[in-house]
């Protein structure tokens, strides 16, 4: 992985964390999981799958460190999401809408896994009020954002203006 790609991913992740905890903490319906979105987008780039998994793990760890949930919870969830994304990404880059739907489905899986693993480790807060809303709105919001931003982000990370042109 090139240094420029690494810097781009690190910057995107930091931006995602800051926006997640400030701007999107004030919105009720528009609640994306920006870090998960970045992880999914990274799996569409030319970066090696092992590196993608490591990035996903470290991203989750970063969110865990900044949050109040148990350390490692999101690291596991994001790693699983990145692995699923890597295994299915060939089906995702055939069109913008498909990419959006694929991102939404992966996010739904991630949120479900977060709830299940979190509950197993006694994070009862994950079953707090609004679980159904989260299961609905987080994937939908990520879907919308993926529709708009995925090609741009992939091009920035790969530094390739022709990436994800959906020919």
């Amino acid at each position, binding site marked *: 992985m090139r240094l420029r790609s690494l810097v781009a991913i690190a910057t995107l992740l930091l931006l995602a964390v800051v926006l997640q905890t400030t701007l999107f903490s004030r919105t009720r319906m528009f609640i994306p999981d920006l870090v998960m979105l970045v992880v999914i987008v990274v799996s569409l780039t030319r970066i090696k799958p092992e590196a993608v998994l490591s990035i996903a793990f470290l991203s989750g760890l970063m969110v865990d*460190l900044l949050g109040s949930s148990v350390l490692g919870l999101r690291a596991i969830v994001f*790693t699983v999401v990145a692995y699923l994304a890597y295994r299915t990404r060939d089906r995702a880059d055939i069109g913008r809408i498909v990419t959006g739907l694929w991102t939404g489905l992966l996010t739904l899986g991630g949120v479900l896994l977060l709830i299940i693993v979190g509950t197993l480790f006694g994070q009862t807060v994950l079953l707090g*009020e609004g679980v159904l809303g989260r299961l609905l709105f987080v994937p939908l919001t990520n879907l919308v954002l993926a529709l708009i931003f995925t090609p741009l982000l992939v091009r920035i990370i790969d530094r390739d203006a022709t990436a994800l042109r959906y020919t």
Partner: protein
Amino acid sequence: MLNREPGARTLPTFITLLVMGLLLMTFDVRSEGGGVTGTLRTGAQTIVAPLQKAAAFVVNPVVNMIDSLSNVATLREQNIALQQELAEFEAALIAVDDDLARLEFYEQLYDLETSGTDIGRTVAQVIGRLRPDASDALIIDKGTSNGIAVGQPVIDTSGYVVGTVQQVTAGTAIIVPITVGPDAVAVIVGEQAGVVAPQVNTNEMRLEIFDAREPVFALDRVVTSSASVRFPAGYPVGEVTADAAPSVGALSTGVRPFVNVDALRVVVVLAWPPDPVTAVSEPESEETSTTSTIGSGSTTTSTTVGGG
């Protein structure tokens, strides 16, 4: 022969990371968030805190403006309601002034003096929330440099209980609301002592009174008890949602918290207990004397450290 093609090491890497994650989770659960993981959390928050503050500085006015524009239709009605409320509070304030004058008179008459010190208060702005974690933990813009320490109680500007400080860095702190726990709060309803604990799937909390002698009724006020080690006595927590009568000496019912965590923009962190080192190191059932300024007057409360 090992396959060295790209992707051949994906599954082993995936499994290794999963195992590492599970080990981390187990370690964090066993260490209860302290030790190395606690230090790591503080370090990470210290790094990100300036960015969050900068982002909040830019984002908050924009979001407030959008909120105001979307609520412009209801502002007129709110204004009228607030004017009525203001008139009621002004009347109440006059009554309180009378009570204060009377209290001062009696203090002079009986030569009374207040003991201890007032609880220090640090007003802090909510700069973010940890979502969609659903923990709804709040990030505030004050930290150890402002005298904030882990475990300190947090109230809102109306004096309603919000939660406690869970983590703190030099410039920020994370507040965990009482509605998501994890611990129960020792409270008093009328003259009966009990605990309120958070519940799964709802913002409503559960009130348990284990030596109930009389029923409690809907809208009964629930306030923090002097038996609490987490909160000073007398701070409002919420109100009972349904009538409940004692059954085999125990009583259980719902409590609706007064505070709306979603709407919080400013909170107040209380420097309580006044001497946290003593409070932590002293054995259970240690009697400490604290002076708290609740509402209008200064009251002396006897606090039992080590219960609830």
